[in-house]
């Protein structure tokens, strides 16, 4: 019954936001790009039935042609096929990392902001420590501890997003905590847990959603960055950043090997950023006239 109620609230607010979003051309474009990537990821075997990791040295480094729309890499694998399957990896890392950030960051942010005092101090100092590293360096450091591979890339990118999520949520909670309706809820005997879940969390949802969308682009860039440096997803798995890295040495001989994965990263990140910006404009109450 709680879910029913809260879904109804979200519904009303998001209906208004959605129509505003549709009027924003850039955001629609971003949404379309993401939708395209999602469809690609889901239907990868339909688009490219062949295993993207099977090598065919006879056809290595072919230029884009009708046989291979985006050409082949140094081991003769279709770049289109690898980008198509790579979208699965990139989206998995993006979603997984952000989910990790949410699962850890939101509760800690809520607790830190709502209770204040010693708990807040401890959580915030730990956050400070994490924030004192540039986020990419933090992810890189974590990967060097955890080891390479898809799972560890996901975990380290996710972990490095946690302090930002904590700070974001905490800031909003602090402003909501002082609202009279929170005091009123306490005055009728509502417990802290219920106040956090029912009164404060729904008010924090909008910034969380916006930040999650923008964070997806960030997570994909980070994952690609780690792949490019050779400490992310390992070959032969077709991760975009890894592909970009292996194409780097061939940039003059066969520019298409590095260019197309780069374009894929660029488009995915652009899509998430445009959609995130649009969502912020559409949902942020401060932007409402």
């Amino acid at each position, binding site marked *: 019954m709680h879910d029913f109620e809260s879904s109804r609230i979200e519904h009303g607010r998001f209906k208004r936001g959605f129509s505003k979003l549709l009027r924003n051309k850039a955001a629609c474009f971003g949404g379309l790009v993401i939708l395209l990537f999602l469809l690609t990821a889901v239907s990868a075997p339909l688009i490219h039935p062949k295993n993207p990791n099977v090598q065919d040295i006879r056809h290595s480094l072919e230029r884009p042609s009708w046989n291979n729309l985006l050409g082949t890499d140094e081991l003769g694998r279709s770049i289109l096929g690898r980008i198509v399957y790579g979208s699965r990896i990139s989206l998995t890392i993006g979603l997984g990392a952000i989910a990790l950030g949410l699962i850890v960051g939101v509760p800690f942010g809520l607790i830190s902001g709502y209770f204040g005092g010693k708990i807040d101090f401890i959580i915030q100092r730990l956050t400070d420590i994490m924030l004192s590293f540039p986020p990419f360096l933090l992810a890189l450091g974590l990967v060097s501890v955890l080891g390479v591979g898809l799972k560890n890339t996901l975990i380290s990118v996710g972990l490095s997003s946690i302090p930002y999520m904590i700070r974001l949520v905490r800031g909003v909670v602090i402003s909501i905590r002082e609202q009279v309706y929170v005091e*009123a809820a306490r*005055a*009728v005997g509502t417990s802290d847990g219920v106040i956090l879940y029912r009164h404060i969390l729904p008010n924090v949802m909008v910034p969380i959603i916006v930040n999650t969308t923008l964070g997806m682009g960030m997570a994909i860039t980070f994952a690609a960055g780690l792949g490019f440096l050779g400490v992310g997803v390992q070959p032969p798995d077709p991760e975009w950043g890894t592909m970009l890295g292996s194409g780097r040495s061939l940039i003059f001989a066969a520019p298409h090997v590095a260019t197309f994965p780069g374009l894929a990263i660029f488009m995915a990140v652009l899509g998430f950023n445009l959609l995130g910006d649009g969502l912020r404009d559409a949902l942020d109450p401060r932007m409402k006239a």
Partner: protein
Amino acid sequence: MNDTPLLSIQNLKVTFQIYEGVVQAVDDVTLDIGTGETVGLVGESGCGKSVTALSILQLLPRESSRIDGRILFDGRNLVDAGESELRNLRGNAISMIFQEPMTSLNPVLTVGRQIEEAIMLHQGLSLTDARIRAVDMLRLVQIPAPEARAREYPHRLSGGMRQRAMIAMALSCRPRLLLADEPTTALDVTIQAQILELMEDLKEKLGMAILLITHDLGLIAQMASRVIVMYAGQVIEEGLVTDLFHDPLHPYTRGLLGSIPVLGRKFTAGRRQLEEIPGIVPSLFDMPRGCRFNLRCPHVMDVCREKQSPMIQLGPHRRVMCWLKAG
């Protein structure tokens, strides 16, 4: 009234630890409220009225505030009560209405939902029953089309309606004591009158006591049977409404009453213009020695600057803290 009071605050002291230091917001406040009685608590902004009310429900921030003294509700001391016992009392036996109806309701929950929450919490009713009860409460506070209103979000209600909804929420568990903290300050005059009438009416129906906190003496005259005047964190005078209004003893109370504009009384005997109390309330950091009112008092004597006057009991419900009455 003659038997044990419903609420008895004894020597309440509230101090806040803030960045600049320690401030004493409430200093040695003692007051009683009998069952079914309406007591007015008046004073200027910042004199400790709201802090007193919040300390009854123990809603002050735990880390930065300190409460000393005793707050006996039905014989139980709320100052030592545990969090779960307090939660049980809040909204159930003691309810509170806040000053700002525009911000007292959560914008993302329906009005009905917020009332149901209190009902389910304290009455252990199912959602269906709580829903019926919530609509009943909205009907009781004379909200038109209560079924439809219950399903709406606060932004669709006007200020007066929201305050009614707040009252409905506060009264949904039939409290024995209602703390009304400036319940009509944010409303326009016609709505004020309606809300007051409604509160009177509900008080009769439910037999609850009300602690009416306000700076509006007209409101007190209309609703309360007894008045307590606070100044700079202290109770300085108490009396039945008739006594206090006809014969204010403390110079501050006199000043308060003198500063009310009265229609048509402009040029009558000796009252040429609106009187004012000179000066401002002293800062909590910088209280004058002796009587806290001595810097503004027209009758100030030497003793006032030296020592605080004792509380002088003049009758069962008549007391004043002033050297003028001490001799």
